[in-house]
């Protein structure tokens, strides 16, 4: 089987870019690290914005990263239907950039939370979850201080109605509205989540449920490359 190319963007302050690349490689992709200052993306079947603290997360998490030159290329890629996955800080960046609805705020507890959490997979019919089954429970770690997802009532109704909520915490660790852990855009080709699937791909680290999400992305990126060819 061919190895689809997936770009992993490195911002100054990213710290999970290499873990994401390693996980994608193990799951059959050919990851390629792309520096934030690049004006273009290489020819890829998908893009991952990794976790970390882009540009020090000054002002608000993700608020500065959204002006990185590469983000314009990511925006064009997403508008063409390209697959974009934002993990943790990457999720915050996508929200600030308006590629995903809502915003992430300081945890209600004001504490940094770092532990495995149980998540309910709400949808298995997305390019990021096709290896799973709707309703199943996934165990994946979170590690964030600002993961409290917020959408106002109107937006929340819209997200629930359109099935954009893909992952929900079984026990809300951070005060997110409706216990939302991950959402897609309306087109379903951009997905952001606070949990770290790249840290849950090896049994040595406790859970391999992250492989289900990243592996789905690898499958979808491969299919996309084949269709394009």
């Amino acid at each position, binding site marked *: 089987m061919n190895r689809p190319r997936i770009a992993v963007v490195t911002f100054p302050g990213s710290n999970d870019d290499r873990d994401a690349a390693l996980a994608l490689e193990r799951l059959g992709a050919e990851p390629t690290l792309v520096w934030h200052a690049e004006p273009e993306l290489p020819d890829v079947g998908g893009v991952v914005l990794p976790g970390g603290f882009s540009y020090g997360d000054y002002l608000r998490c993700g608020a500065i990263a959204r002006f990185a030159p590469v983000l314009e290329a990511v925006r064009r890629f997403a508008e063409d239907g390209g697959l974009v996955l934002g993990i943790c800080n990457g999720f915050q960046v996508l929200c600030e950039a308006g590629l995903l609805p809502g915003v992430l705020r300081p*945890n209600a507890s004001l504490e940094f939370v770092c532990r495995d959490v149980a998540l309910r997979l709400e949808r298995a019919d997305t390019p990021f979850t096709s290896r799973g089954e709707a309703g199943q429970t996934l165990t994946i770690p979170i590690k964030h201080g600002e993961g409290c997802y917020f959408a106002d009532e109107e937006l929340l109704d819209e997200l629930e109605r359109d099935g954009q909520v893909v992952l929900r915490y079984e026990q809300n660790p951070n005060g997110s509205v409706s216990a939302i852990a991950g959402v897609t855009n309306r087109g379903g080709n951009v997905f952001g989540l606070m949990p770290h699937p790249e840290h849950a791909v090896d049994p040595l680290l406790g859970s391999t449920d992250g492989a289900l999400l990243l592996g789905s992305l690898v499958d979808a990126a491969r299919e996309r490359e084949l269709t394009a060819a």
Partner: protein
Amino acid sequence: MKATILVRPKPGILDPQGEAVQSSLRQLGFAVDEARVGRVIDLELADADADAARAELERACEQLLANPLIESYEIAVER
């Protein structure tokens, strides 16, 4: 020209920082019913025209300094 921008969490938005400040103040004996914590941004502007500066700052707030989903802002320009 100087300008000051106040960014506040919108009413109804959970403000855990404000709650922590309120509870600390109460512990110190201050009778505080509510605290909300925002952000102050002081700017030194090249612009000499106050109205033009205000219009620019309006854009700066929308694009970067505040997230309109959760924050409101106030602009004060010193003439």
